């Protein structure tokens, strides 16, 4: 049972979260401009490193915010947590940096 620090609610059990896979994979701005191969890459191909991995979680049973975590995929140590909610930029402070 991982202990994940929601940037807003603080440390909670993994069970409260939904996993969202690799972080920072943006939906292509213009999908129609992509080749089938490029589109397939967006749909299906994600990094899968053995080591630090930037990934998304959503605090589904809590504040329901999505955020990013850098987690080591062998030790499960959480190396960084980052809120990507726009409010953060506007001055509301998540409880963890």
């Amino acid at each position, binding site marked *: *049972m991982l202990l994940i620090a929601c940037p*807003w*609610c*603080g440390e*909670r*059990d993994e*069970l*409260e979260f939904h996993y969202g896979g690799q972080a920072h994979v943006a939906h292509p701005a213009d999908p129609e401009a992509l080749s089938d191969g490029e589109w397939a890459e967006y749909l299906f191909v994600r990094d899968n490193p053995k080591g630090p991995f930037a990934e998304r979680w959503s605090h589904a*049973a*809590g*504040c*329901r*915010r999505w955020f990013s975590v850098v987690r080591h995929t062998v030790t499960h140590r959480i190396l960084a947590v980052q809120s990507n*909610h726009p*409010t*953060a930029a*506007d*001055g*509301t402070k*998540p*409880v963890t940096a």
Partner: protein
Amino acid sequence: MTADTLRRSPLGHLADVLAAHSTGGERGVRLREVPFLAQLDLQLHPHGPAAQRIATALGTPLPTAPNTVTAGGPDDLQVLWLGPQEWLVLGPDGSAPTTAGLLRAALADEPGSVVDVGANRTTLELAGPAARHVLEKGCALDLHPRVFGPGRCAQTLLGKVNVILHQVDAEPAYRLLVRGSFTQYLTDWLLDAMEEYRHPPLPA
């Protein structure tokens, strides 16, 4: 005006059962439903002008510290932090239309939402010296008084059910807001967890 005789709270039919399972004493714990509380889901930007207007209208600021509750105003409202841009405004039975009106007026043209969720969830109150231990049977939050206490709230899991947990008294007493469809299950779960405290403790 609606005849209140038509209204059914999810646990109205179980009031006697809840009372019968409640116990007093040093390791007592009590469970009851607090039906028909007004509940409004409020979403908006916490630092816009509307937030200030709402604070004035409600008579209490919106809590911006996660997992905290503010209270006040003539209507005895409580505002629970649900997320960085979301709150639950709780009030007495019947107060929803007025409060919703106030909130909508204060929100004005600013993006946000006010949604009546009064019938979406009901409220259970779990109180007594053993209340925390009952919760600890299925809640992974740290409920130690050093960490959690009156005026704190959290959206979390109790057993397999999402709840809004709100500590209202140091006794301790907690309110559990649970969606209507899960109410029966959660009640069964709580009554089962409380069973231990109806019996003598295990000899040391």
